[in-house]
C-alpha cells in the first residue's frame, strides 16, 4: 500500500521510452520512501511485457489485458486507472506528458479530486510545512516545473490529497536498467466491474501511425534556430550548417510559433529535451523554457547579435554577430579544416 505507481504507455506493442524513464525516476522515489514501485499496463496481449518492466525496477506489474484497451481510448483507460488507484491507494502516480498521458491523466485527477502537475522537469521527495495551518509533512513529492512562460520555476506540492500525480515529458528523465531486475510480479486488474458500457461509446474509425521522420533526440550535434533567425528562408542556413556538420536541426518555440520550421523540431519545456555533444544556438535568446530542454548539452555555442542574451550565460562560446554572417563562415572554416 501507498506505493509509487507508473502508468505504462504502449505504442504498437512497444513500451514508450517515457514510461521506462518514469520507472527509473519512480524507482529512485520508491527507494527514498522505502516503498514498492508498481507499473500499470492496460492494452491487448501485454502480459509479456512484465520482464522488460522488471529490468527498469518494477516490483509489481498490474495488467488489464483485453482488446478494448488498444488502441488507447480515454474512458476505458481512465476507468481502470481510477479503479486501481482507489483499490491500491498509491501515494504517487506518474504519467508521461504525451498526448496519451495529457489526455487522460487530468481525467483521473478530476475523478479522484487530487492534484496533477503537468510537465514536471524534476521530482524529489522533501518535507513541507503548511504556512497557514503549520502542519508538517515528512515526505511529499516536490513537483518542479517552469511556469509563466518559463520566467519562474515553481515547486508544487499536494499536501492533503492522494495520490500525488505528475506528468513528465519524454527525454526529461534518464532511463536506466537496475543492477538486478526487480520481481516484476504479474497481477491482473479486476477491470470488468470498473469499465461501464458507456466508457466504450467513443469509436476509433481510422488510424494512421507515421514513422518518426525527425530524430533530434538521438542527434549528437544539433544546430537550433530561434526567432532571431528571422524567417523560413533564414532557416535554410541553419539546415545547411546542420547538414555540413552531420547534425539535426532544432528550434525554439518562438521559431516554431512563427512558422519558421516544424513543430517536431521544438526543443524545450514544451518540446523535446536533448543532450547532444554539441549544441549551436542560432538567434536563440535563451528563455528558461528553451534552456530547460538543452542545458545538458556537453558544449554550447551561441550566435546572437545581443551580447547580453541569456543564452550566453550557459554557453561555452558566445559569438556576437548575426546568423547570416556567422553561419557561412562556420561552414567555410569547417570545410577547410576538417579532413
Amino acid at each position: 500500500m501507498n506505493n509509487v505507481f507508473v502508468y505504462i504507455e504502449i505504442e504498437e506493442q512497444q513500451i514508450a521510452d517515457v514510461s521506462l524513464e518514469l520507472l527509473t525516476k519512480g524507482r529512485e522515489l520508491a527507494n527514498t520512501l522505502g516503498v514498492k514501485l508498481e507499473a500499470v499496463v492496460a492494452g491487448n496481449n501485454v502480459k509479456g511485457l512484465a520482464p522488460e518492466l522488471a529490468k527498469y525496477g518494477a516490483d509489481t506489474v498490474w495488467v488489464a489485458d483485453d482488446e478494448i484497451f488498444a488502441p488507447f481510448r480515454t474512458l476505458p483507460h481512465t476507468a481502470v486507472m481510477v479503479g486501481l488507484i482507489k483499490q491500491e491507494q498509491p501515494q504517487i502516480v506518474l504519467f508521461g506528458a504525451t498526448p496519451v498521458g495529457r489526455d487522460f491523466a487530468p481525467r483521473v485527477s478530476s475523478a479522484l479530486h487530487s492534484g496533477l502537475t503537468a510537465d514536471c522537469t524534476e521530482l524529489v521527495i522533501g518535507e513541507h510545512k503548511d504556512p497557514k495551518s503549520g502542519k508538517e509533512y515528512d515526505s511529499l513529492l516536490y513537483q518542479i516545473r517552469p511556469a509563466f512562460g518559463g520566467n519562474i520555476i515553481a515547486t508544487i506540492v499536494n499536501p492533503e490529497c492522494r495520490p500525488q500525480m505528475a506528468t513528465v515529458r519524454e527525454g526529461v528523465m534518464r532511463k536506466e536498467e537496475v543492477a538486478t531486475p526487480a520481481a516484476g510480479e504479474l497481477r491482473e486488474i479486476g477491470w470488468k466491474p470498473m469499465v461501464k458500457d458507456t466508457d466504450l461509446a467513443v469509436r476509433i474509425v481510422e488510424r494512421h501511425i507515421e514513422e518518426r521522420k525527425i530524430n533530434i533526440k538521438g542527434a549528437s550535434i544539433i544546430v537550433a534556430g530561434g526567432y532571431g533567425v528571422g524567417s523560413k528562408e533564414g532557416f535554410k542556413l541553419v539546415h545547411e550548417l546542420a547538414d555540413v556538420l552531420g547534425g539535426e536541426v532544432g528550434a525554439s518555440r518562438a521559431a516554431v510559433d512563427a512558422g519558421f520550421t516544424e513543430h517536431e523540431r521544438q526543443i524545450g519545456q514544451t518540446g523535446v529535451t536533448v543532450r547532444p555533444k554539441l549544441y549551436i544556438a542560432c538567434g536563440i535568446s535563451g528563455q528558461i523554457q528553451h534552456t530547460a530542454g538543452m542545458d545538458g548539452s556537453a558544449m554550447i555555442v551561441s550566435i546572437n547579435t545581443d551580447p547580453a542574451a541569456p543564452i550566453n550565460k550557459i554557453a561555452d562560446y558566445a559569438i556576437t554577430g548575426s546568423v547570416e554572417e556567422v553561419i557561412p563562415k562556420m561552414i567555410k572554416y569547417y570545410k577547410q579544416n576538417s579532413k
Partner: protein
Amino acid sequence: MAKQVPDTRNVGKDAMTPEGTVNRAALAAIFNPEDLNALEMALQMKDRIGNARVEVLTMGPQRAADVIREAMFRGADGGYLLSGREFAGSDTLATSYALSCALRKINPDIIVAGRQAIDGDTAQVGPQVAEKLDLPQVTYAEELVDINDSEITIKRRLERGSEVVVAPLPAVITVNASAKECRPRNAKRVMKFKYALATSEMATADDKAKGFIEERPYLHIVEFAAADVNPDPEQLGLSGSPTKVKKIENVVFQAKEAKTLTSEDADIEALMVELIAGHTLG
C-alpha cells in the same frame, strides 16, 4: 470555453522587473491562441448544423469580457463571464469545477475549448471539465469531419500520426493549434457587437449605453458570480485546489565562463579548429 492569457510568447525586455520578478503589467492580455482554433471549429459546427448558437464561456476578471467581444466579432452569438473573488487562486481542478458548475447551468450540446492555455501549458482543464460533467472527450482535435444531432466525427492528432473518432453527443472537444486558424473579425459584426457589455461593466456605463443595451439584449454578456452557479464553496479557489505552490524561484541563469567571440573570420576559424581538434566535430 476560452481564456484571456498574458502573452507569454512575446516576453520583451521589460517583462522582468529590476528585482527579477515577472512584470505582469508589461505583458499584453490576449485571446489564448488555441481557444481561437476552438472558436473556429465551433463556428464550423454551426455552419454545418445551421440552427445553432455559438456562445463563449470565460472565467476571469471583468476585463476578460474582451475575449467574449472578440469572439463575437469573429462569429460567436453570445457569451458568459464567470467572475468573482471566490475563484482566485484556483488550480486546474478548482478552475474546471467552477467551469463545470457554469456549464451545468448553460447546458450546451457540445463544449469546445483550446487544448491548452499558453500561461500554464497544462492541457488539463478540458478533460477535467469532461470528467466533472461525465461526458466523453476528444482531445488534440484537428479537423471537424462530420456532425449530426447525435454524434460528432473528429480527426485528432496522435504523438505520431492521427486518428478519426466518432463520439456521442454531448461531448467535450479540445482543439489543437494544428487545426484551422480562426476566421478574422467581420467588419459588420464589429459594428454590431462593439458595445456589448458584461453586467458589471454596465453598472459603470453611462445611461445612454445602458439604454442602448437594454433595447438590444444580444449585446448583454451574461455575468455569473459564484453564487449564480450553485457551487460547493469548498471546491472553489484556494480551498478547492489540491496543489499548492511551495516555492517560486525567479530564473537566474548561473553564469559560467563563456568565451566571447566576434564574428570576424579569425575568431570563427579558431573556433572551428578547436571544435575539430577536441573531437566535438568529426
